[in-house]
């Protein structure tokens, strides 16, 4: 069979085709446009999931096109890690797209939003399904640049400013990655992801490339101090786009970190050179600052965005500890945080959609008006704080175990402190919504407004599904995601060179 028609490749290419198809039909029928957008994410989800049997059997699927774009070539690869992350991305993308078909009704320029959303999906999937750094980079740029259109969708002055910041940092990040990749190519003559890594020397160029990788992925993942674009860009985007950006796109940065540490440089080299200490340092600062600043934000979406910064710190910490259990935690947190943050953004978006209230202080009494939405928000928040048996707990638990394996109590304390801070910034929201006085901030005429109705099903169902996953993933007899994360971490650590 020709390489082009393998599911691994198709999963990344199908959304591209869909983006083109949407562009062509959208002028004639908005129904077809919305339908195709939903179908694009569903189709790629199905294509990714179709690997399930082979992946569980321990197989690694490789598809190579060495003659495309020489001298580096294009290749695709599906192993435990990429299967898991691709499934998460396409699955949640599907739910968010369903949600957006209703949410975007009130917005302008929908004909621009949908094709670019699907294009971003193509990029994100390509990133995680790529088999080498070069392919990774190509899709990474596609994703980052298409996402720009989602960020500036509102076209307000604020959005344009945030978008410009995002764009310039994206380009800087892209150039840093580009440099890192050609440097690796120069050192080793290949850029393919190889179990156990292949960079042998730790010379100056290798260090430069590692720093460049750190800058490139750090900008994408929002590692402090490279996060500056994130709290600006995520809140100004339409809410479903925020959910995609915060819940999924950041993860490609974390995914990149995992790939370079384990499949490019290899654990031994990183441990020998102590480069992970650099990551650890920034991870600690990120966790602490992200959570601390989130407390001070009144705009709900900005609060969520800063929370994302802190949460990405967990993932980077889990990777940088270089312990198997910590890595399991990090990989699982990719899943957990994707679920939690997208449900939070969708819920916040739903409230903004109905009431236009972006400020936390205005949400008093919201629990009575939009009960289901607030329940979703509450579940996700509790999970963020890390209360068992919700998904947020598992990742923290594993990362904590990992840091104990590394013999360092400090990180456990940091995790606890961060959980406490999460509690501090999520709890008042919930408390205000359910038990606050709805009349506290209302003007006289607003009081006469009828109670806000609940949402159309297209918005409600995705949120409920996400909340359901948060609750039930660990309650089911088999936690498949955790199993996959364990397998992935095991494969990354104990690769036969």
């Amino acid at each position, binding site marked *: 069979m020709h390489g082009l028609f393998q599911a691994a490749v198709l999963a990344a290419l199908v959304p591209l085709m869909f983006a083109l198809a949407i562009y062509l039909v959208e002028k004639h029928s908005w129904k077809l446009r919305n339908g195709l957008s939903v179908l694009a994410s569903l189709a790629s989800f199905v294509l990714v999931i179709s690997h399930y049997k082979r992946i569980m059997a321990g197989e690694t699927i490789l598809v190579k096109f060495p003659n495309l774009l020489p001298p580096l070539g294009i290749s695709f690869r599906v192993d435990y890690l990429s299967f898991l992350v691709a499934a998460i991305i396409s699955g949640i993308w599907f739910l968010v797209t369903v949600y957006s078909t209703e949410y975007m009704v009130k917005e302008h320029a929908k004909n621009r939003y949908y094709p670019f959303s699907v294009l971003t999906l193509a990029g994100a999937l390509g990133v995680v399904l790529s088999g080498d750094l070069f392919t990774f980079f190509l899709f990474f740029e596609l994703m980052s640049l298409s996402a720009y259109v989602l960020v500036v969708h509102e076209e307000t002055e604020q959005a*344009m400013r945030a*978008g410009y910041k995002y764009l310039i940092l994206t*380009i*800087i990040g892209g150039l840093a990655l*580009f440099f890192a990749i050609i440097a690796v190519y120069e050192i080793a003559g290949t850029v393919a992801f190889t179990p156990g890594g292949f960079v042998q020397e730790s010379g100056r160029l290798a260090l430069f490339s590692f720093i460049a990788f750190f800058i490139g992925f750090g900008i994408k993942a929002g590692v402090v101090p490279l996060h500056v674009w994130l709290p600006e860009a995520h809140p100004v985007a339409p809410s479903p786009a925020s959910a995609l950006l915060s819940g999924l796109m950041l993860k490609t940065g974390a995914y990149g970190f995992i790939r370079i540490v384990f499949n490019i440089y290899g654990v031994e080299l990183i441990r020998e050179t102590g480069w992970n200490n650099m990551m650890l340092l920034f991870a600690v600062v990120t966790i602490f600052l992200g959570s601390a600043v989130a407390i001070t934000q009144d705009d709900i979406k900005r609060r969520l965005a800063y929370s994302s910064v802190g949460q990405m710190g967990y993932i980077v910490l889990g990777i940088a500890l270089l312990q198997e259990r910590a890595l399991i935690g990090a990989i699982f947190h990719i899943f957990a945080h994707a679920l939690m943050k997208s449900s939070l953004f969708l819920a916040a978006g739903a409230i903004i959609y109905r009431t236009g209230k972006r400020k936390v202080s205005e949400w008093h009494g919201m629990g009575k008006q939009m009960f289901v939405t607030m329940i979703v928000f509450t579940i996700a928040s509790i999970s963020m704080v890390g209360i068992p048996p919700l998904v947020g707990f598992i990742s923290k638990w594993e990362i904590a175990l990992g840091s104990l394996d590394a013999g360092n109590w400090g990180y456990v304390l940091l995790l606890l402190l961060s959980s406490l801070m999460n509690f501090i910034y999520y709890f008042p929201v919930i408390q205000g919504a359910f038990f606050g006085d709805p009349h506290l901030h209302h003007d006289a005429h607003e009081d006469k407004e009828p109670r806000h109705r609940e949402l159309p099903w297209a918005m409600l169902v995705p949120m409920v599904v996400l909340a359901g996953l948060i609750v039930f993933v660990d309650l089911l007899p088999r936690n498949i995601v955790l199993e996959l994360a364990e397998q992935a971490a095991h494969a990354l650590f104990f690769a036969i060179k």
Partner: protein
Amino acid sequence: MVNITHTPVLIVVLLLSGAFVVALLSKYLQVGRFIFLLTAAMVLLLSTRLTFMVLEYGTIHYTLGGWAPPFGIEIVVDAFAAFSSLVIAGVSAVIFWFAVFGPREVNNETGYYSLLLLLTAAMHGMVLTGDLFNLFVFVEISSLAAIAIIAVKGTGESIEASFRYLVLSALGSGVVLFSIALIFMISGHLNMSYIHDALVITAGQYPLNIVLAVGFMLVGFAVKAALFPLHVWLPDAHSNAPTASSALLSGLVVKVYIIAFMRIVYLALGIPIFEILPIRQIFLVLASIAIIMGSVFAMVQDNIKRMLAYSTIAQVGYIFLGVGLFNQRAVEGAVFHILNHAIMKSLLFLSAGVIIHQSGHKKISELSGLGRRIPFTFAAFSIGALSMVGIPGTAGFISKLYLALGALDAGQTLFAILILISSLLNAIYYFPIIIAAYFGKDSPLDARDPAWATQLPLVVLSLGVLFFGLFPSIAIPLVRQTAQLFIK
């Protein structure tokens, strides 16, 4: 039936006679246009055939009038010449189409077409010839024609710009001739390969001659190719010319001088001079300055065509950088960039010309919101701009990739970083235009996309940018052979 071996000379002859015939047809405009385009199409065919011949049989030697070298003029079609000829033929054909079907900017149409053909003939001649003096003649023809296609617009600024270009160009030609004389003095030949053989023996005895010759040659061609400190004529000339001329000048003419220079330095003078003069280091330094300063100047321009012109100065630096790094990948990158920049800069100039014509504005600050009014043309402009920044999937990325890899191969990390900084600078001045056009406040203008015939060249060039960005493999055999010519 034309003998297959006459193809190289036929290209030049066809263009010259085309220029002659078209100039006479001012009364029969339609016929003139038809012959004009027909000539371009035939040249493209011949050039393609030539390329395939070179790929199949290797370098072709053709002696004019049957006079054998060293006395007769020899045409040497190696991979580089075939490649350059194909680029010139392809891009100029597209630009010619635009000149015919695009906005009217000149009064004497057939005269303009004649000049365009003459210029193209000279460019083909420059890359194909193996004789130094013959090359000089073509340099002069191309200079004259290039100046003329600026002045043909007939406005005060364009004539003033073209006169300034003429003065500097004449200076450049003067020193090039001086340099040729100096080379002739110590080698006794004008045929490039004979010069090379002679210089291997005699160069060491006359270091002063070599230093002067190379120095003059560098100055002369640097003026014509607008290498940084000698670029002063370019922004005015390229921004005041008619659109088709700007595209041709920025996309091809500037580069053809570089090609000619590369041929002289590497093929005719060759190894002996590298031992006497640190010419590669000079290239690297000048190229670095050009790359940074060109972008810095481009950033502060408000006139869109001037901005594109300054951007060309920076891009010329890329090519010199690749040549100066002098390893397989870097030279491949430079050669790729000759092709890629020809396509993307013509695309940018043509679409900018259409935008200016349709909207009546030429200032970047006035283009806000026009992306919605003239979506098609702006899409073409955006593709060109993305390519200039070097976004993956566009042709510009490929040149960036090869040049950066070449810089690392040469152990010069600094230059790899320089290329990346330049990409960032490009992004800083190209992206705001696109952003303002698509997301800026709505334009009150009632501008629309032009007719399909005007858009066709934009489509072809946009597809070219994407095609060579995604499938550069198709050009690899030629590019690789070219690089091997240099890195013997």
